[in-house]
């Protein structure tokens, strides 16, 4: 008799090893960052979150992976509900329900897989389990139709929590997909299309955002779309695509954490999240500017940054599906545009009400940023140094050109659209009330909508009324059930 939870763990190899290193590194850095912010009550859930993320990449059996999924979800739930406002509670519960729904799909898939093979070792699932697993992955990776949990939850937590949240949940989804999924019904790479579509769609939505972390959250969705596309392409088209997707995971995790840390610093100074009212940080915080530029360049795929290398690999791998490639190019254009906007508004825009004095920042708060930025740069310059990256010439003229073209397009678009993109948010009364994003946006938390008109009210009332059935009616019901049961059991 095999145990259900063998907790088989092993240090992974190849590109997964680099992912493991990144998970560990960012986990430690961001955890210390949280501790440094004197957010003591987050220490335990944050530690559990990090541990679960690392567990996910060490897991060698499906059950351990599922445990890691659920622990990630629950620890994130605690982290998100942290501020404890009504809106925070609602968002966190929604987050949890979505995540556990993903876990339930995983449960179905694991059940079917185990039922057919009798084994729980990590590997490609049986075909009947694949659709359920895809559903689970779509939820976990926040692929487009079900991305809302991420874009709602991540911007609404404490500043120091968002980078930590961005590291694991979606990435573990990608990781699971890379290990368990191999689906292309009738030769059609579902995941690749969904992923590429998400990459484009989320970028378009990101362009419309004015809040720093909301914008970055949409970019998480978009970038995870790249990875999902990579994993999806791996299913039957190109073995390298999975590696490319995983490599993108490694690079993206780093630069997204960096960007979120930068955003956190900025928001901390301003006390609000509205990008159009920030500006002017560039001259006062040169180090922050540098980090921000590195992150923005990396996510836009500027040559000699880490994002360039991983996106190059992805586009190489997607040659078999040209349309996917084009979608990814389109996403690159949007990403570039979006981050020109981001850096412009954050650093170079004219400070549009005068800001509080940011120059008193203590040096230690910059340590995590500098570390992550350094690693991002190193990966960009020496992509082969990352374990598991295939030997390939990254910096050929044609590849550089293919990376620069979308950037040129972004720059062009920026010229055209600058006014429209940097127009201040029209909504008045979003004035910041404190450092936490939740407070800044809490005014939107509606009181209970008119109760009588809430959907399902009539259903609820009906169910309650039914459950106050009088005693004699209950007795009658017993007899009716007896009659029905007897009728069903009457020999035929």
């Amino acid at each position, binding site marked *: 008799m095999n145990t259900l939870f063998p907790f088989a763990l092993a240090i992974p190899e190849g590109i997964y090893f680099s992912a493991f290193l990144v998970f560990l590194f960012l986990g430690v850095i961001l955890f210390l960052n949280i501790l440094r912010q004197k957010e003591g009550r987050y220490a335990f859930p944050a530690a559990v979150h990090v541990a679960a993320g690392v567990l996910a990449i060490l897991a060698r059996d499906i059950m351990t992976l599922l445990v890691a999924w659920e622990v990630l979800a629950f620890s994130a739930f605690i982290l998100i509900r942290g501020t404890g406002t009504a809106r925070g509670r609602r968002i966190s519960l929604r987050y949890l329900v979505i995540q556990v729904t993903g876990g339930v799909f995983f449960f179905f898939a694991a059940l079917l897989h185990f039922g057919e093979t009798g084994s729980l070792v990590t590997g490609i699932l049986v075909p009947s389990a694949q659709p359920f697993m895809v559903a689970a992955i779509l939820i976990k990776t926040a692929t487009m139709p079900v991305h809302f949990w991420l874009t709602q939850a991540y911007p609404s937590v404490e500043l120091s929590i968002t980078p930590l949240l961005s590291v694991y949940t979606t990435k573990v989804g990608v990781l699971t997909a890379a290990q368990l999924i191999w689906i292309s019904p009738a030769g059609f790479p579902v995941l690749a299309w969904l992923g590429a579509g998400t990459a484009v769609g989320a970028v378009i939505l990101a362009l419309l955002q004015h809040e720093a972390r909301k914008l970055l959250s949409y970019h998480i969705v978009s970038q995870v779309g790249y990875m999902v596309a990579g994993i999806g392409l791996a299913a039957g088209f190109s073995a390298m695509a999975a590696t490319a997707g995983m490599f993108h995971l490694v690079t993206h995790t780093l630069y997204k954490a960096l960007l979120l840390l930068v955003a956190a610093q900025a928001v901390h100074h301003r006390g609000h999240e509205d990008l159009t009212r920030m500006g002017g940080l560039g001259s006062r915080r040169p180090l922050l500017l540098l980090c921000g530029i590195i992150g923005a360049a990396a996510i836009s795929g500027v040559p000699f940054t880490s994002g360039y290398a991983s996106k190059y690999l992805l586009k190489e791998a997607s040659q078999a599906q040209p349309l996917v490639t084009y979608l990814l190019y389109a996403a690159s254009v949007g990403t570039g545009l979006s981050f020109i906007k981001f850096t412009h508004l954050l650093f170079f825009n004219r400070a549009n009400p005068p800001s509080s004095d940011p120059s008193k920042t203590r040096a230690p708060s910059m340590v995590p940023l500098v570390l992550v930025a350094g690693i991002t740069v190193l990966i960009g310059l020496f992509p082969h140094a990352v374990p598991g990256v295939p030997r390939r010439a990254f910096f050929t003229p044609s590849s550089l050109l293919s990376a620069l073209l979308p950037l040129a397009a972004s720059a062009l678009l920026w010229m055209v659209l600058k006014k429209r993109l940097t127009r201040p948010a029209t909504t008045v009364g979003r004035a910041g009330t404190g450092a936490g994003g939740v407070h800044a946006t809490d005014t939107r938390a509606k009181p209970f909508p008119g109760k009588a008109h809430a959907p399902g009210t009539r259903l609820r009332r009906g169910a309650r009324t039914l459950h106050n059935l009088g005693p004699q009616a209950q007795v*009658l019901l017993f*007899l009716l059930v*007896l*009659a029905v049961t007897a009728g069903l059991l009457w020999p035929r």
Partner: protein
Amino acid sequence: MESPVIRVFLTRLTAGFLCLLLSLGFVVLLLDAGRHRAQTIPTQMEEPYTARSVAETGSINVVTAILMDYRAFDTLGEATVIFASVAVAAAILGKPGSPSNRTMGLLSRRQLSALLPLFFIFPLFVIFHGHLSPGGGFQGGVSLAVLVILIHVAFGDRFGEEVIPHRILALSEYGAAIGLVGIGFVGIFQGSAYLANVAAGFPRGTAGTLASGGVIPLLNLLVGMKVAAGLSSIYVHLAGHEAENVPEKRR
């Protein structure tokens, strides 16, 4: 459209129809079951008790033999049910307090005080002759309880409480119950099974005499005590008003 009277009438008609249908179904099933048994089981094997009960238990009343010996465990269970319902009644109603002093008329009381001692003969006879004739601990115990209730009704609850205090009722119930359980253990100590009678070394005696049937008369006595005390205290609880809890809300 339809008046409530008609609606109630129709509801009741439906309910009555359903009840009749259900009970007729029960009858059909029971008759079928009887027919099935008549077909499958030979008649001489039909009934295992009558032929052997005298030899095995010493009780000529087979029903008592079954109740107090063959299936004495059932009896223990039902004695426990009585015990439990007394406890439940007490738990629900609280301590009986402020007994009412309503009595019967003088004539009835006079007659009763003369007759009551005689009335006690019958239940005792029923209890002690349980293994010889129809009757036994339950029947006798219930008759005894009726007498206690009669005292309460005729002479007032206060007098009843004075003559037979509730505490005594409770104590005798607990005592009888513990005795009942304790006698069962004799079988275990004698190397036989729980609630064993003759197998545990109780003398079988001569069938048909008062001192026969091993432990059966003793069990009858204890069950009688227990049932009498239990039912009387249920009455006391039901009839007595609780002192501190007069009706607060009337709707």
